Protein backbone atom coordinates (compact mmCIF):
# COMPACT_ATOMS: atom_id res chain seq x y z
CA UNK A 1 0.00 0.00 0.00
CA UNK A 2 2.89 2.29 0.73
CA UNK A 3 4.38 2.16 -2.76
CA UNK A 4 1.24 3.32 -4.66
CA UNK A 5 0.68 6.00 -2.04
CA UNK A 6 4.24 7.22 -2.41
CA UNK A 7 3.89 7.25 -6.20
CA UNK A 8 0.63 9.15 -5.96
CA UNK A 9 2.19 11.74 -3.65
CA UNK A 10 5.14 12.03 -6.03
CA UNK A 11 2.86 12.67 -9.00
CA UNK A 12 0.86 15.21 -7.01
CA UNK A 13 4.07 17.01 -6.00
CA UNK A 14 5.28 17.12 -9.61
CA UNK A 15 1.88 18.33 -10.82
CA UNK A 16 1.83 21.04 -8.17
CA UNK A 17 5.32 22.19 -9.14
CA UNK A 18 4.41 22.25 -12.83
CA UNK A 19 1.19 24.15 -12.17
CA UNK A 20 3.09 26.71 -10.07
CA UNK A 21 5.77 27.10 -12.74
CA UNK A 22 3.17 27.48 -15.50
CA UNK A 23 1.22 30.03 -13.47
CA UNK A 24 4.34 32.00 -12.60
CA UNK A 25 5.19 32.42 -16.27
CA UNK A 26 1.72 33.63 -17.25
CA UNK A 27 1.79 37.43 -17.62
CA UNK A 28 -1.34 38.01 -15.53
CA UNK A 29 0.03 36.04 -12.63
CA UNK A 30 3.45 37.65 -13.01
CA UNK A 31 1.74 41.05 -12.75
CA UNK A 32 0.11 39.99 -9.50
CA UNK A 33 3.40 38.66 -8.13
CA UNK A 34 5.16 41.95 -8.76
CA UNK A 35 2.15 43.95 -7.63
CA UNK A 36 3.80 45.95 -4.91
CA UNK A 37 3.44 49.74 -4.74
CA UNK A 38 6.23 51.66 -6.46
CA UNK A 39 8.01 54.57 -4.78
CA UNK A 40 5.72 57.18 -6.35
CA UNK A 41 2.52 55.24 -5.63
CA UNK A 42 0.13 55.28 -2.73
CA UNK A 43 -2.40 52.65 -1.77
CA UNK A 44 -6.10 53.27 -1.34
CA UNK A 45 -5.79 52.52 2.38
CA UNK A 46 -3.04 55.12 2.76
CA UNK A 47 -5.12 57.64 0.84
CA UNK A 48 -8.06 57.07 3.15
CA UNK A 49 -5.83 57.46 6.20
CA UNK A 50 -4.36 60.71 4.92
CA UNK A 51 -5.09 63.69 7.12
CA UNK A 52 -5.06 66.96 5.24
CA UNK A 53 -6.30 68.27 1.91
CA UNK A 54 -6.56 65.62 -0.79
CA UNK A 55 -7.23 66.10 -4.48
CA UNK A 56 -8.13 63.16 -6.73
CA UNK A 57 -7.28 63.45 -10.42
CA UNK A 58 -8.70 61.11 -13.05
CA UNK A 59 -6.30 60.53 -15.96
CA UNK A 60 -8.61 58.15 -17.85
CA UNK A 61 -10.23 59.02 -21.18
CA UNK A 62 -13.14 61.48 -20.97
CA UNK A 63 -15.77 58.82 -21.74
CA UNK A 64 -14.64 56.68 -18.80
CA UNK A 65 -14.65 59.68 -16.48
CA UNK A 66 -18.20 60.55 -17.59
CA UNK A 67 -19.42 57.02 -16.82
CA UNK A 68 -18.05 56.98 -13.28
CA UNK A 69 -15.23 58.40 -11.21
CA UNK A 70 -14.04 58.77 -7.64
CA UNK A 71 -16.25 61.33 -5.87
CA UNK A 72 -14.93 64.89 -6.24
CA UNK A 73 -12.18 63.79 -8.64
CA UNK A 74 -11.30 66.16 -11.45
CA UNK A 75 -10.39 64.98 -14.95
CA UNK A 76 -6.87 65.72 -16.16
CA UNK A 77 -5.52 64.15 -19.34
CA UNK A 78 -2.76 65.07 -21.76
CA UNK A 79 -5.36 65.47 -24.52
CA UNK A 80 -7.34 68.15 -22.67
CA UNK A 81 -4.59 69.48 -20.46
CA UNK A 82 -4.87 73.20 -21.10
CA UNK A 83 -8.66 73.16 -20.69
CA UNK A 84 -8.59 71.10 -17.48
CA UNK A 85 -5.55 72.36 -15.60
CA UNK A 86 -7.19 75.62 -14.50
CA UNK A 87 -9.88 73.79 -12.49
CA UNK A 88 -7.15 71.68 -10.88
CA UNK A 89 -5.17 74.74 -9.85
CA UNK A 90 -8.29 76.37 -8.42
CA UNK A 91 -8.71 73.39 -6.08
CA UNK A 92 -5.02 73.04 -5.21
CA UNK A 93 -3.16 74.83 -2.41
CA UNK A 94 0.31 74.27 -0.96
CA UNK A 95 0.24 71.13 1.19
CA UNK A 96 -2.46 69.38 -0.84
CA UNK A 97 -1.79 65.72 -1.55
CA UNK A 98 -2.66 64.99 -5.17
CA UNK A 99 -3.48 61.40 -6.15
CA UNK A 100 -3.74 60.53 -9.84
CA UNK A 101 -5.39 57.37 -11.10
CA UNK A 102 -6.23 55.63 -14.34
CA UNK A 103 -7.71 52.28 -15.20
CA UNK A 104 -4.91 49.82 -15.66
CA UNK A 105 -2.46 48.26 -13.23
CA UNK A 106 0.42 49.40 -15.40
CA UNK A 107 -1.25 52.63 -16.50
CA UNK A 108 1.18 55.14 -17.94
CA UNK A 109 -1.30 58.02 -18.17
CA UNK A 110 -1.48 58.67 -14.44
CA UNK A 111 2.29 58.55 -14.13
CA UNK A 112 2.64 61.01 -17.01
CA UNK A 113 0.17 63.42 -15.37
CA UNK A 114 1.93 63.10 -12.01
CA UNK A 115 5.35 63.80 -13.50
CA UNK A 116 4.09 66.83 -15.39
CA UNK A 117 2.47 68.31 -12.27
CA UNK A 118 5.71 67.92 -10.33
CA UNK A 119 7.97 69.20 -13.09
CA UNK A 120 5.99 72.06 -14.61
CA UNK A 121 3.63 73.12 -11.81
CA UNK A 122 5.80 72.56 -8.72
CA UNK A 123 3.11 70.45 -7.03
CA UNK A 124 5.12 69.03 -4.16
CA UNK A 125 3.04 66.02 -3.14
CA UNK A 126 1.78 64.03 -6.12
CA UNK A 127 1.23 60.26 -5.99
CA UNK A 128 -0.18 57.62 -8.31
CA UNK A 129 -2.95 55.39 -6.96
CA UNK A 130 -1.67 51.82 -6.74
CA UNK A 131 -4.08 49.60 -8.68
CA UNK A 132 -5.84 52.64 -10.14
CA UNK A 133 -9.56 52.73 -10.83
CA UNK A 134 -9.82 48.94 -10.45
CA UNK A 135 -8.58 49.17 -6.86
CA UNK A 136 -11.22 51.80 -6.11
CA UNK A 137 -13.98 49.77 -7.72
CA UNK A 138 -13.04 46.60 -5.90
CA UNK A 139 -12.85 48.40 -2.57
CA UNK A 140 -16.18 50.14 -3.08
CA UNK A 141 -17.88 46.93 -4.30
CA UNK A 142 -18.80 48.31 -7.72
Amino acid sequence: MREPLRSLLGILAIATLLAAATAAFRPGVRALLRDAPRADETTLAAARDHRGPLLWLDARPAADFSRAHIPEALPLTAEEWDAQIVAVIQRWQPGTRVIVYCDDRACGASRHVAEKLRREYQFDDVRVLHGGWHAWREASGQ
Partner: protein
Amino acid sequence: MRRMATLPLRASRRASAFVAVAALATAASAELKWDSAELTAKIRAQEAETHASFGFVNAGAQPVTITEIRPGCGCTVPALAKSTFAPGERGEFTIAYHPGNREGRHRVDITVTTDDGASSTVAFVADIEALVSFDTRFVFWKGNEPRHPKRIRLTFAPDQHARLTEAQSSDPRFGVTFRAVGDTGREFEIEVTPPAEVLNYTAITLHTVVGEDQTARQFTVVARTM
Protein backbone atom coordinates in the same frame (compact mmCIF):
# COMPACT_ATOMS: atom_id res chain seq x y z
CA MET B 1 16.54 -9.86 -9.07
CA ARG B 2 12.89 -9.01 -8.56
CA ARG B 3 13.73 -5.81 -6.84
CA MET B 4 16.12 -4.90 -9.66
CA ALA B 5 13.27 -5.40 -12.14
CA THR B 6 10.64 -3.37 -10.28
CA LEU B 7 12.73 -0.24 -9.87
CA PRO B 8 12.89 0.68 -13.57
CA LEU B 9 9.19 -0.13 -13.91
CA ARG B 10 8.27 2.29 -11.07
CA ALA B 11 10.54 4.93 -12.54
CA SER B 12 8.92 4.39 -15.91
CA ARG B 13 5.43 4.87 -14.43
CA ARG B 14 6.52 8.07 -12.73
CA ALA B 15 8.07 9.32 -15.94
CA SER B 16 4.82 8.59 -17.80
CA ALA B 17 2.85 10.47 -15.19
CA PHE B 18 5.31 13.36 -15.40
CA VAL B 19 4.97 13.52 -19.19
CA ALA B 20 1.17 13.41 -18.95
CA VAL B 21 1.03 16.24 -16.45
CA ALA B 22 3.54 18.27 -18.47
CA ALA B 23 1.48 17.76 -21.63
CA LEU B 24 -1.66 18.92 -19.84
CA ALA B 25 0.14 22.00 -18.53
CA THR B 26 1.41 22.87 -22.01
CA ALA B 27 -1.99 22.40 -23.60
CA ALA B 28 -3.58 24.72 -21.07
CA SER B 29 -1.19 27.57 -21.80
CA ALA B 30 -1.86 28.60 -25.40
CA GLU B 31 -0.08 31.92 -25.24
CA LEU B 32 1.37 34.59 -27.47
CA LYS B 33 5.10 35.00 -27.79
CA TRP B 34 5.98 38.56 -28.77
CA ASP B 35 8.76 39.52 -31.19
CA SER B 36 9.37 42.47 -28.92
CA ALA B 37 7.42 43.28 -25.79
CA GLU B 38 8.42 46.94 -25.99
CA LEU B 39 8.66 49.23 -29.02
CA THR B 40 10.17 52.71 -28.91
CA ALA B 41 9.67 55.49 -31.45
CA LYS B 42 11.10 58.99 -31.73
CA ILE B 43 8.39 61.50 -32.60
CA ARG B 44 9.01 64.98 -33.90
CA ALA B 45 7.36 67.95 -32.19
CA GLN B 46 4.76 68.55 -34.87
CA GLU B 47 3.98 64.94 -35.81
CA ALA B 48 0.25 64.30 -35.34
CA GLU B 49 0.24 60.50 -35.59
CA THR B 50 2.66 57.60 -35.70
CA HIS B 51 2.17 53.86 -36.25
CA ALA B 52 3.77 50.74 -34.85
CA SER B 53 3.11 47.02 -35.13
CA PHE B 54 3.54 44.28 -32.56
CA GLY B 55 4.38 40.89 -34.08
CA PHE B 56 3.81 37.61 -32.27
CA VAL B 57 3.56 33.87 -32.70
CA ASN B 58 1.08 31.53 -31.06
CA ALA B 59 3.56 29.52 -29.01
CA GLY B 60 0.89 27.32 -27.45
CA ALA B 61 -0.44 23.95 -28.56
CA GLN B 62 -4.00 25.22 -29.13
CA PRO B 63 -5.54 27.80 -31.47
CA VAL B 64 -5.82 31.14 -29.73
CA THR B 65 -8.24 34.02 -30.30
CA ILE B 66 -7.45 37.56 -29.26
CA THR B 67 -10.56 38.85 -27.51
CA GLU B 68 -9.38 42.29 -26.43
CA ILE B 69 -6.54 44.74 -26.99
CA ARG B 70 -6.65 47.42 -24.36
CA PRO B 71 -4.22 50.36 -24.43
CA GLY B 72 -3.70 52.22 -21.16
CA CYS B 73 -4.27 55.55 -22.91
CA GLY B 74 -6.95 56.98 -25.20
CA CYS B 75 -4.11 58.34 -27.35
CA THR B 76 -3.48 54.85 -28.75
CA VAL B 77 -5.88 53.11 -31.14
CA PRO B 78 -5.22 49.41 -31.81
CA ALA B 79 -6.20 47.52 -34.97
CA LEU B 80 -6.26 43.77 -35.54
CA ALA B 81 -6.88 42.37 -39.02
CA LYS B 82 -7.36 38.78 -37.84
CA SER B 83 -8.10 37.48 -34.37
CA THR B 84 -7.66 33.66 -34.36
CA PHE B 85 -4.26 32.02 -34.79
CA ALA B 86 -3.33 28.37 -35.11
CA PRO B 87 -0.45 26.89 -33.09
CA GLY B 88 2.80 28.23 -34.50
CA GLU B 89 1.05 30.85 -36.65
CA ARG B 90 2.43 34.36 -36.80
CA GLY B 91 0.32 37.48 -36.45
CA GLU B 92 0.45 41.15 -35.59
CA PHE B 93 -1.63 44.06 -34.41
CA THR B 94 -0.97 47.68 -35.19
CA ILE B 95 -1.44 50.86 -33.22
CA ALA B 96 -1.96 54.46 -34.21
CA TYR B 97 -0.45 56.71 -31.57
CA HIS B 98 -1.47 60.38 -31.25
CA PRO B 99 0.99 62.38 -29.13
CA GLY B 100 -1.38 65.35 -28.72
CA ASN B 101 0.24 67.88 -26.41
CA ARG B 102 2.55 65.34 -24.85
CA GLU B 103 6.28 65.70 -24.79
CA GLY B 104 9.19 63.72 -23.45
CA ARG B 105 9.06 60.01 -22.80
CA HIS B 106 5.55 58.55 -22.75
CA ARG B 107 4.89 54.88 -22.15
CA VAL B 108 1.63 53.19 -23.12
CA ASP B 109 1.06 49.70 -21.75
CA ILE B 110 -1.20 47.59 -23.94
CA THR B 111 -2.92 44.55 -22.47
CA VAL B 112 -3.80 41.75 -24.88
CA THR B 113 -6.34 39.20 -23.70
CA THR B 114 -6.98 35.83 -25.33
CA ASP B 115 -9.90 33.43 -25.19
CA ASP B 116 -8.09 31.06 -22.81
CA GLY B 117 -8.24 33.81 -20.19
CA ALA B 118 -4.55 34.64 -20.42
CA SER B 119 -3.37 38.19 -20.87
CA SER B 120 -0.02 39.68 -21.72
CA THR B 121 1.21 43.23 -21.71
CA VAL B 122 3.34 44.93 -24.35
CA ALA B 123 4.42 48.56 -24.32
CA PHE B 124 4.80 51.39 -26.78
CA VAL B 125 7.26 54.05 -25.66
CA ALA B 126 7.10 57.38 -27.45
CA ASP B 127 10.07 59.69 -27.18
CA ILE B 128 8.38 62.95 -28.14
CA GLU B 129 10.37 66.00 -28.98
CA ALA B 130 9.15 68.98 -26.99
CA LEU B 131 8.14 71.96 -29.10
CA VAL B 132 8.39 74.22 -26.13
CA SER B 133 9.57 73.97 -22.54
CA PHE B 134 8.76 76.11 -19.51
CA ASP B 135 10.70 76.61 -16.31
CA THR B 136 7.25 76.59 -14.72
CA ARG B 137 3.70 76.82 -16.00
CA PHE B 138 2.21 78.02 -12.73
CA VAL B 139 3.05 80.97 -10.52
CA PHE B 140 1.22 81.80 -7.31
CA TRP B 141 1.28 84.18 -4.39
CA LYS B 142 0.36 83.04 -0.90
CA GLY B 143 -2.00 85.18 1.20
CA ASN B 144 0.60 87.34 2.93
CA GLU B 145 3.20 87.27 0.19
CA PRO B 146 4.11 90.66 -1.38
CA ARG B 147 2.48 91.02 -4.77
CA HIS B 148 5.70 91.39 -6.72
CA PRO B 149 5.70 90.33 -10.38
CA LYS B 150 6.75 86.75 -11.16
CA ARG B 151 8.24 85.42 -14.36
CA ILE B 152 7.75 82.36 -16.52
CA ARG B 153 10.41 81.43 -19.06
CA LEU B 154 9.46 79.74 -22.32
CA THR B 155 12.04 78.13 -24.60
CA PHE B 156 11.26 76.79 -28.06
CA ALA B 157 13.07 73.69 -29.30
CA PRO B 158 15.86 74.40 -31.83
CA ASP B 159 15.01 74.66 -35.54
CA GLN B 160 11.29 75.16 -34.99
CA HIS B 161 11.17 78.68 -36.50
CA ALA B 162 8.85 79.55 -33.64
CA ARG B 163 8.01 82.75 -31.79
CA LEU B 164 5.63 84.05 -29.19
CA THR B 165 3.20 86.58 -30.64
CA GLU B 166 0.73 87.35 -27.85
CA ALA B 167 0.06 86.65 -24.15
CA GLN B 168 -3.60 86.99 -23.22
CA SER B 169 -4.87 86.95 -19.61
CA SER B 170 -8.39 85.67 -18.89
CA ASP B 171 -8.57 88.05 -15.90
CA PRO B 172 -7.57 91.61 -16.80
CA ARG B 173 -6.68 92.35 -13.15
CA PHE B 174 -3.52 90.30 -13.71
CA GLY B 175 -0.98 92.29 -15.70
CA VAL B 176 0.83 90.20 -18.32
CA THR B 177 3.74 91.28 -20.52
CA PHE B 178 6.37 89.33 -22.44
CA ARG B 179 9.71 89.92 -24.11
CA ALA B 180 12.36 87.96 -25.96
CA VAL B 181 15.43 87.18 -23.83
CA GLY B 182 18.89 85.81 -24.64
CA ASP B 183 20.36 85.82 -28.11
CA THR B 184 19.03 82.56 -29.51
CA GLY B 185 15.65 83.97 -30.57
CA ARG B 186 14.04 80.96 -28.92
CA GLU B 187 13.58 82.21 -25.37
CA PHE B 188 10.84 84.43 -24.01
CA GLU B 189 9.99 85.71 -20.55
CA ILE B 190 6.39 86.28 -19.47
CA GLU B 191 5.97 88.60 -16.51
CA VAL B 192 2.80 88.38 -14.42
CA THR B 193 1.72 91.07 -11.95
CA PRO B 194 -1.10 89.95 -9.63
CA PRO B 195 -3.95 91.97 -8.15
CA ALA B 196 -3.96 92.67 -4.39
CA GLU B 197 -6.99 90.46 -3.74
CA VAL B 198 -6.71 86.82 -2.72
CA LEU B 199 -8.34 83.83 -4.41
CA ASN B 200 -8.05 85.09 -7.93
CA TYR B 201 -6.62 83.21 -10.83
CA THR B 202 -5.94 83.77 -14.48
CA ALA B 203 -5.33 81.45 -17.40
CA ILE B 204 -2.77 83.07 -19.66
CA THR B 205 -3.00 81.95 -23.26
CA LEU B 206 0.29 82.14 -25.10
CA HIS B 207 -0.19 82.48 -28.83
CA THR B 208 2.73 81.22 -30.88
CA VAL B 209 3.50 80.53 -34.50
CA VAL B 210 5.60 77.52 -35.43
CA GLY B 211 7.40 76.14 -38.47
CA GLU B 212 8.03 77.37 -41.99
CA ASP B 213 4.30 77.71 -42.58
CA GLN B 214 3.88 79.62 -39.27
CA THR B 215 1.19 77.32 -37.89
CA ALA B 216 -0.63 78.81 -34.89
CA ARG B 217 -0.17 76.93 -31.58
CA GLN B 218 -1.43 77.92 -28.16
CA PHE B 219 -0.18 77.07 -24.69
CA THR B 220 -1.68 77.89 -21.32
CA VAL B 221 0.06 78.94 -18.14
CA VAL B 222 -1.72 79.82 -14.93
CA ALA B 223 -1.30 82.40 -12.16
CA ARG B 224 -3.15 82.49 -8.88
CA THR B 225 -3.34 84.47 -5.65
CA MET B 226 -4.16 82.51 -2.47
